[in-house]
């Protein structure tokens, strides 16, 4: 059985990185660049995700050493507590960051 829990973690980390990257680009950009310079923006955005993913791949690698002898973690059947913690981290950060971005956009438009 594919390890559902691990996949969920990967997706969460990835979504978080993309949101944070997008937020950084939107928030820090110079007003001169507004609605301009899309290619560099995309490069910066994905570059940020890439660098974050590179470093975070290490903990994932650690978590993913299921098939080897002397495994350190038991990821296959996460306890209820684990699921709860993961879901709440996800909900919290996702809601917060979307709220910040949306309020920012509204604020900028008015």
């Amino acid at each position: 059985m594919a390890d559902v829990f691990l996949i969920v973690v990967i997706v969460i980390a990835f979504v978080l990185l993309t949101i944070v990257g997008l937020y950084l680009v939107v928030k820090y950009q110079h007003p001169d660049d507004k609605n301009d310079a899309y290619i560099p923006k995309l490069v910066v955005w994905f570059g940020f995700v890439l660098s974050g993913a590179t470093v975070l791949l290490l903990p994932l690698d650690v978590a993913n050493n299921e098939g080897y002898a002397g495994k350190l973690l038991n990821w296959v059947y996460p306890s209820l507590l684990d699921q709860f913690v993961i879901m709440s981290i996800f909900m919290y950060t996702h809601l917060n960051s979307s709220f910040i971005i949306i309020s920012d956009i509204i604020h900028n438009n008015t």
Partner: protein
Amino acid sequence: MELFWDIIYWLIPIWMFFLIPFSTFYYEADDGMLMAGTSVGAKPNSRICEAIKYEMFVVVIFGLIFALTYLFLNETSIPVREVVGPAFSVGPTYTIVQNTAVNATFSASQLAPMGDQDVAVLTSNVANPDLGTVELSVNPSVFYAGLMAWMGWFFFALFGAIGMAAMPLDLILYFIHRPRHMDAVEFGEAQVMLRDRVNELVNVGELLKLEREEKAQQNGAKSGGFFNKEARKAASEEKKTLLQFKQAVYLLEEDAEDFANCTENYKNYNPLIPIGCLLGGICAFIISLFWVLHIILYMLPNTPVTPFLNTYFEWFDSWFPLFGVLSVAIFSFYLLMCAVKGCFKFGLRFLFFQVHPMKLNKTYMSSFLFNIGLVLLCALPVVQFSVSAFQDYARNTTINQVVNVQLQYLKFFGWFWQKKVFEYALLVILLMTCIYLGCRPRDSSGSNSIALRDRLRSRVG
């Protein structure tokens, strides 16, 4: 996992040498719209062509470097220990007791128990006391990961070390120098001081402009060649002055913002920011301290004194399975942030290159691209550093097999990693930064703007 890592290994060089330079050229290229129609033959909107032209140089140069290094340096010699055992026929022979039941399966209990003969076979194994080596050529993706990591290490050893020292200090200093309400006298004094500084810098700017104009006129008369030593010296002097000027302007902007936060924006200023900075500073201090201890206790000695952080991570795991992995993520991500921090700090203190600070709503794409390039370049050294730091904890990982086996013993590059050159450099720079920042904790431009102005004046006048 291997696939994931391979994707990363390839994407980083693509970003570093293709997309980031390309978009920098594209972004900075003159789009010709300003002067459109004034010059003959200038096509407006040829930014992409321009960018592609420059990009070709970069691709050719780095393509050559990559191809040549892979061609000549792709061998790794992994140390192995040879064990020679006796021939198979020397071992004892056993007969299997037949299981007479119908449809019975084999079980180990049908074998005779091990005896003296088996012990004799085992003890006759001879291990070679000297390590032999196996020569292998690594595959391109692993090799380029190593090459990128090696290049990145030079930056990471410098910026990472500076950042590890500067990060906690700056965060805590931000709390100490947080905006406070000023009384009328203080307000007046601060305002006058800021105004003076602005005036000085405006003067300096005027002088710089004057000097440039003069030079432009002179150049019309005689062209200073590249081989003219005087001209080159003057040019580098001018560049240095310009950087100094930019630095002073940046610091003034910072102070003006602080001043605004103390006065008109005081009501809007979020008082939680300094407290957050203090908490962050304390956390950063703890993480930095642990890293330094870990380097000294685990990474530098040939036989580690103690596994240190590795033990803690395993202990965390036994306590709550997620925490060990999370700590690895925190510790390695912290290094990446330190690299960026160190780059800002270094650029502000020394005049080697332009400062590309990230400021809210004020960051141009070129600064973004510069910083992202730096972060990407430092990402692989961070991973390599973390893997060698957490070798015990992360012993079953794919990346451990790549970094600590294949890359560790690579021809030429392996020498740097085996001798721990970069780790020593990192530690030394870190200690030096601590001492330096201990003496001069606040950022100030290399010399104050009055001295800069006087120098310019003497040159122009």
